[in-house]
């Protein structure tokens, strides 16, 4: 039932990323459920992974057995050539890519009869976008991009039209912490778009990060400041009557820069604008906390988060009540669909 509804949610999308908040939160299970449901609906599927998926046992904890990924007949896959050969299934080579991985060079193949396959496509966004477009050209109605560990880069609108998020007991041993960390992560995916046209004008022409001052002047901000870490002196940038109102970042927004901005702005309202939510790296404080301190984190392009799958079990460790977890998450994030694709074994 829940897999059916997930498939409804992604039905219109062409590129769907499955992103996890940690290892063992249930990305593979989500992928397997979606593949089956899309096959039932006669949709030709393409599959790639920025990490590696479909292996028999977990790479960090070999006691954990993982679901295999059965690609439906006629499906396309981007994976490392040695893995495809090792699968022992009939395949047609669609194209070879220039992207190499620690498991071998990646290629795109069609599996006429389908079958269980290990997926390890290009690791980068550019590579993922490239194989996704190629699989679409070769007949995939929909391409699923599998994430890895807690990597969020593939959730970028440059790679995916739609994101499914996997969360669960693997995040923490305490129920409240799983809820808090999930809420904080969803807040980042749901960061608002900047409302100031000046920001988009500046972004269209900038070659690196810039600040927009109160009087509308656009000044470059050095990477040594944005990535420099704690102690970066931002007072010249932010203090005074003509201090920056917006900082438009060409790359990553790291916690230290957010923190130094908050300190230097001394309570004045500042917005930090990133290309999209995958460029935000907060570990200590939530985006909501910064907003309450008058530092508003915004994006140029929104991420569409379609649903969250919840795995209440951490194998060999602990488990929570699935209904209680989903009820609590729904109460905190009322407009989002949460589902559990169980049963889970531990």
């Amino acid at each position: 039932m829940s897999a059916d509804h997930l498939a409804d949610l992604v039905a219109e999308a062409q590129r769907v990323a499955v992103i996890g908040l940690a290892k063992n939160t249930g990305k593979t299970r989500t992928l397997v459920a979606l593949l089956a449901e899309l096959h039932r609906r006669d949709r030709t599927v393409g599959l790639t992974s920025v990490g590696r998926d479909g292996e028999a046992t977990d790479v960090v904890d070999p006691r954990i057995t993982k679901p295999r990924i059965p690609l439906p007949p006629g499906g396309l896959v981007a994976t490392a050539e040695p893995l495809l050969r090792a699968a022992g299934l009939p395949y047609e080579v669609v194209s070879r890519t220039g992207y190499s991985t620690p498991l071998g060079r990646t290629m795109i193949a069609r599996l006429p009869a389908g079958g269980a396959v290990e997926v390890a496509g290009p690791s980068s966004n550019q590579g993922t976008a490239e194989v996704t477009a190629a699989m679409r050209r070769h007949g995939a109605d929909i391409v699923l991009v599998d994430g890895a560990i807690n990597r969020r880069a593939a959730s970028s609108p440059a790679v995916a039209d739609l994101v499914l998020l996997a969360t669960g007991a693997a995040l923490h041993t305490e129920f409240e912490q799983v809820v808090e960390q999930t809420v904080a992560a969803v807040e980042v995916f749901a960061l608002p778009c900047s409302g100031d046209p000046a920001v988009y004008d500046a972004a269209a022409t900038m070659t690196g990060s810039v600040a927009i001052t109160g009087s509308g002047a656009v000044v470059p901000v050095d990477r040594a400041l944005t990535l420099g870490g704690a102690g970066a002196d931002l007072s010249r940038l932010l203090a005074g009557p003509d201090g920056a109102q917006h900082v438009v970042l060409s790359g990553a927004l790291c916690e230290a820069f957010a923190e130094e901005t908050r300190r230097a702005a001394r309570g004045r309202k500042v917005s930090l604008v990133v290309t999209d939510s995958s460029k935000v790296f907060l570990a200590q404080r939530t985006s909501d906390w910064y907003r309450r301190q008058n530092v508003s984190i915004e994006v140029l392009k929104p991420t569409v988060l379609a649903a969250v799958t919840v795995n209440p079990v951490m194998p060999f460790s602990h488990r929570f009540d699935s209904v209680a977890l989903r009820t609590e998450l729904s109460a905190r994030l009322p407009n989002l669909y949460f589902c559990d694709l169980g049963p889970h074994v531990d």
Partner: protein
Amino acid sequence: MRETADLSAVRPYGDHLNDGLVQVTFTLPVPYGLAARHAALELARTMRLTEPEVVHYQRLCDGYTYFVVIGQCRQSVDFATLREGAFDIQYLTEPEIDRLIEEQIGRRVVVIGASTGTDTHSVGIDAMLNLKGLDGRHGLEAYHGFEVHNLGSQVPNARLVEQAIAVNADAILVSQTVTQQNLHLHNLTELVEIAEAEGIRDRTLLICGGPRVSHELAKELGFDAGFSKGTYPDHVGTYIAKEMVARRAIASTTATAG
């Protein structure tokens, strides 16, 4: 002429091809004596070693005995299929790596490294990068072909990426003691994600090393290569040089085709 091995059924080599001779060393928590020797032979048989011999045994301390046992291993592995089915690099020596870089790249390759996050263990990264290297094999700093920047330990990921861009690095090396804790994994994935966010992911080789890093883990983390125990600087140097040459070749075919 030297006899050539059948690569589809490779056996251990002792004195001559296919004799299957192996040596195992272990300690048993039993007192030094004749019964201990029997126990070692019995254990070797359960390891499926045929004709086992105890070539050396000695008392370690009260109640513990150390053994060196040799025996024949009848099993074989299919190296030919394995090599075809798996990712493989054949290692070059220091002069070979320097020559490859000089001839095929034509400039020094810039490598930057650090132990990142909260990790204070810089032994691994120092062994790979610093002049003295490891076990008599130079670190990359000693090579003509490499320009090396070692930032040391406890370097934040953002700062490493910032420095990598500042020195126009071709490769970023990080070492990390990976445990089952998400903390270590997440510190490694953060580096990959910041490199991606800063737009340098596809032009920089990302390499991680540590006692538990496998190729499989490196792929999940998003790195281009992962190195573990038994790695020497020339292994890392070979990978960087060969991969850069391979990528240039692909880029030039694409450019010609396009």
